[in-house]
């Protein structure tokens, strides 16, 4: 295989093409904007993807279509932006010109106080507006899950979001009007070459194709794979870890494919949460709420399911649900592929069944059989954009009032995402009654000895795990309100 190499990365920054040869693999987009480019509109509030002050839009192509998404510049590596269009708050209005409709709405509704969070909100709302010019309040709140404001109490910001379309016409927005031209320009930047930047201790590579990725990784088994960098970004910004050499993968469209067949869904390892969302909602509607509560919109735009799995965290949210659904993953090293059941991938805390030089290529999720009922419950201190204290996923099949199969997996209860096999055993074959449930919940004590930390105490985790099974049962009985009703009409 002859592969052509390029030693620069190229992207459009606001209105200009930028080509860089000298970029550190840990250079964040935020520092690049603020320090290298003197674009000070984008702020740093936390440097860990949680506050949204650094929100910018990144436009990238998939199958020739250009989509702009809000991302956290603080944990996004510049190296990953090859072929993208980066839009920052600084470019929305001309120095003496009128404000952008999103900006004008924010001013009109008194939606900024100290103003430090404001550019981030403007960019999140801008991203939303391009997707949906008349969003519902729930839609606005969802788009703002990744933006913290400590001053306003948000009410004014919601009012602003509702007012934008009365001020401007999204059809006339420059990014909308220019979308095709920019898409063509970005397409010309995609030359299929491998990008290699830096040397020795400071190196990163953007493989030219998935095959090239496999080859590069096999040749550099110690390299750090970076997908959406919503985990790896923090290794750099918080732990100052050395991650060179880095191999990026999200620029590979082949890895961002989703396929649906008669038996299930296959997600490429580079598919983001946001990209997977429509398929999840359609085929696994029980996972919708979970999906809506993973990170904030920026994190869902960047982060991948593949990364969530490969990261191996015991509090990652997709593994318990996917284990309950019987998902498997395909691992690839060079040209060799193997498929493992997802639950077998997690060996122990910090240890997964992945060889050096091997990567996750895809995730396979089989459809749920008609006799089974699925539920996933994520329990957190704060409802949205919070890391799981306990996450329980259930797939229980019934026949004539008896349990025929039960797969129950939990996050936050052990060093890995783990099945509650004793509970499952207590349920299998039993009658679906309250007595069975009360017998089964005692088995949680054999399955798990959770830890106490700042998210929850061991005692709380254990009790909640039991209660989640109780909830699953209650939901099959439908008696009164058993979940919070987030849909209560919201008045502004």
């Amino acid at each position, binding site marked *: 295989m002859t592969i052509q190499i390029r030693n620069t990365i190229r992207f459009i920054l606001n209105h200009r093409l930028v080509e860089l040869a000298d970029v550190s693999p840990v250079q964040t987009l935020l520092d690049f904007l603020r320090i290298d480019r003197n674009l000070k509109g984008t*702020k740093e509030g936390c440097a860990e993807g949680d506050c949204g002050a650094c929100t910018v839009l990144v436009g990238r192509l998939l199958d020739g279509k250009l989509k702009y998404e809000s991302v956290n510049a603080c944990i996004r590596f510049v190296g990953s932006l090859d072929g993208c269009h980066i839009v920052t708050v600084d470019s929305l209005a001309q120095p003496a010109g009128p404000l952008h409709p999103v900006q004008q709405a924010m001013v009109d509704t008194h939606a900024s106080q100290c103003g430090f969070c404001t550019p981030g909100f403007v960019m999140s709302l801008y991203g939303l507006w391009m997707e949906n010019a008349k969003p519902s309040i729930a839609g606005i709140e969802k788009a703002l899950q990744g933006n913290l404001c400590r001053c306003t109490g948000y009410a004014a910001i919601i009012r602003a979001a509702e007012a934008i379309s009365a001020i401007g016409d999204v059809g006339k927005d420059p990014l909308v009007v220019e979308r095709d031209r920019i898409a063509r320009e970005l397409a010309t930047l995609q030359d299929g070459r491998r990008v290699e930047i830096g040397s020795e201790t400071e190196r990163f590579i953007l493989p030219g194709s998935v095959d090239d990725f496999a080859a590069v990784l096999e040749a550099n088994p110690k390299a750090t794979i970076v997908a959406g960098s919503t985990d790896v970004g923090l290794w750099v910004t918080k732990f100052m870890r050395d991650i060179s050499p880095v191999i990026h993968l999200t620029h590979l469209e082949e890895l961002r494919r989703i396929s649906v067949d008669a038996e299930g869904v296959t997600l490429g390892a580079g598919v983001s949460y946001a990209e997977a969302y429509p398929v999840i909602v359609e085929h696994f509607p029980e996972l919708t709420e979970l999906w809506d509560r993973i990170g904030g919109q920026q994190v869902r735009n960047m982060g991948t399911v593949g990364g969530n799995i490969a990261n191996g965290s015991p509090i990652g949210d997709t593994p318990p649900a996917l284990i309950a659904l019987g998902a498997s993953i395909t691992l690839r090293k060079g040209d060799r592929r193997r498929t493992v059941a997802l639950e077998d991938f997690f060996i122990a805390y910090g240890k997964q069944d992945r060889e050096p030089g091997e990567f996750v290529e895809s995730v396979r999720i089989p459809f749920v059989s008609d006799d089974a009922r699925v539920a996933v419950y994520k329990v957190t201190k704060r409802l949205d954009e919070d890391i799981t204290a306990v996450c329980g996923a259930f797939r229980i099949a019934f026949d004539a009032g008896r349990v025929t199969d039960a797969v129950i997996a939990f996050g936050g209860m052990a060093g890995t995402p783990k099945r509650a096999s004793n509970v499952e055993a207590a349920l299998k074959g039993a009658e679906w009654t309250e007595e069975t449930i009360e017998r089964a919940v005692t088995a949680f004590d054999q399955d798990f000895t959770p830890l106490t930390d700042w998210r929850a105490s061991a005692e709380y985790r254990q009790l909640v795990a039991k209660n989640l099974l109780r909830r699953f049962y209650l939901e099959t009985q439908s008696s009164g309100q058993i979940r919070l009703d987030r849909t209560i009409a919201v008045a502004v």
Partner: protein
Amino acid sequence: MNVMQPIDRIRGGVHEKERHESGHKHVSGTAEYIDDIPEPQGTLHGYLGLSQRAHAEILSIDFEAVSSSEGVIGVLTAADIPGENDISPAHKHDEPIFVTDKVEFHGQPIFAVVATSREAARRAAAKVKIEYRDLPHVTDVLEAAAANYPLVIDPLKLERGDIEAGFAKAKNILEGEMRIGGQDHFYLEGQISFAIPGEDDEVLVYSSTQHPSETQHMVATVLGVPSNAVTVNVRRMGGGFGGKETQANIFAAVAAVAAKKYRCPVKVRPDRDDDMSATGKRHDFHVDYKLGFDDEGRIEAVDAVFSARCGYSADLSGPVTDRALFHADNCYFYPNVRLRSRPLKTNTVSNTAFRGFGGPQGMVGGERMIEEIAYAVGKDPLEIRKLNFYGGEGRNLTPYHQTVEDNIIGRIIEELETSADYAKRREAVIAFNRENNVVKRGIALTPVKFGISFTKTEYNQAGALVHVYTDGSIHLNHGGTEMGQGLYTKVAQVVADEFQVDLDRIKVTATTTGKVPNTSATAASSGSDLNGMAAANAAQQIKARLVKFAAERWNVSETDVAFEPNTVRIGVDRLSFNEFIKIAYGARIQLSAAGFYKTPKIHWNRAEGRGRPFFYYAYGASCSEVSVDTLTGEYQVDRTDILHDVGRSLNPALDLGQVEGAFIQGMGWLTTEELWWDAKGRLRTHAPSTYKIPLASDRPRVFNTRLAEWSVNREETIRRSKAVGEPPFMLGISVLEALSMAAASVAEYRIAPRLDAPATPERVLMAIERLRAAARQKG
């Protein structure tokens, strides 16, 4: 002389819903925060090295790897401080910039690295090798008391009536305790300072500080130079909330020391995690209370001790714990009362000012007592509240012997009860709870009365500087700082109103110690009260000169000269403001003035616990309804209604924003914001990933906020307005109380739920479990 057509009114005068003066800059990213100021060539960056132990002797420090790290220019330790190694705002000499032999909390600064980039400095700082000898440590306030830890400052006692007689007379006596958590400010812009060395001993410091004069004073002390050598500047902060009242000082001092030492501009900005580990927060409290009350629920006697986790030094813990006591009565008359504070030392970061300044903790304690009584006598807590409100013969004296003269809580509560349809909804909640076993609801309506003025009387003064230029444009500067609250906008509106010129004619410039000296912290909600008055005073001085001049020049009486919208009327004639100013300048009239204001009437004798610490009170009330999932303890706020008193609002749009924002912040404090220390004394919730402030989706699902438009401050404050920064923070208490009611429902409302704060889902679930068990026992 020109005859002008008069217009009715200026644009942007007082009481108008003016936009924030920086709104258009916030949204476009052009509002400049300190980290956005262009860095002169050669700017260096400092980064603090923090203790990795909660309490330990430092045996040795090895800087080898730090110094040889890429880009490092040098390391600063206590030895590099030319003046005093102390920034104690309480002047207790208990707050070193860099510790030398003993660390007293995990995260305490030990040294700073100066390097060519922030990244380089930060990476280098992490490479230090420190040998410690661990000492026993205490992070919790009760453990501190048990371990005989000292108080960081003298406690306060408030006493009135005869407490023994009160309890003797009371038919019912009840004792209990409560824990109230602290809170991180989580200002979106972290701490930052940028120092630029000047000639001789001079230094200019850009600091994200709420208290430029104190920062100036601290920098001067640390450098060992007089205050006149130090200028501190701040155009705006990206949030403060009290967290930059004293906590900004260390960053300013370190930047200044480094700037003088290396003769280069030096910026110091910690990472968010270090900011949260190394800077103080709202005090956690433990309240021990004993209550005497009659069968109706009328309070006879209250005896309470408020113990606070102060951290390793005094900082502002004295006035903070004082203010907790000042607000433990909230709106209620305590016939016989003794309130004591216990500001305890702990091996944690030194706690500091935070919106409400101890008042919220006192008030939450007071509301807990009301709740106890309500459950004891089996009534709606709101009934108990009303029964005990100040008002009526002999029922207006606070525990600190100030008479409540401006009480409007009755009307506020009445209006809110109606607009929120409280009674009916409470019925509905109770009915819902009868029908549903998993989701339970709660509703609560709680009042707020908050005292306005610094309890340190000398802080109740302010200065302002107003220049009118020959083109008629006006420059305004005052001692208050802008942190988002809209102070610059409001004070400019006052000046516009004084001169009767459009608001856009006035430019407010960055707060600087070089223009207005000896200022107080922008804190205690005092910003517009004090600075608005000082600016009005400056404008009035200029106006007086202009009136006198006009009367002489045009030969009319002074009463015939008036400033009317964008014009000056002199007798029957009218001049444009600009023209008039030009003429006045030509006549050599001084067009600049320094204004001054000091709050009247107030006095306070701490030793006796007696006086009138507050000029007036601000009132408000909120009604919240919640749903709780009793399987997990998770909850949501279904609806909140607020009615809040800001007197005659200087700017209703900005005031509404303050009320909404404060409510949400108060709600966060009492619900999901949890500070969690591990066994090693490390704060583990030190970033937004682990410390959860409210999100947009945590807003009440229905959120109605109104200002009490009829309210007029009975004291002569600036345009009869009232302070707004802190009081609405305590409106969040209704959420805690509503959660508490939802929990109580599982035991048929017969047992006081004693839900502590923050009421995280875990605390709520555990309270529910406890109540269920107790109800089973009761049978």
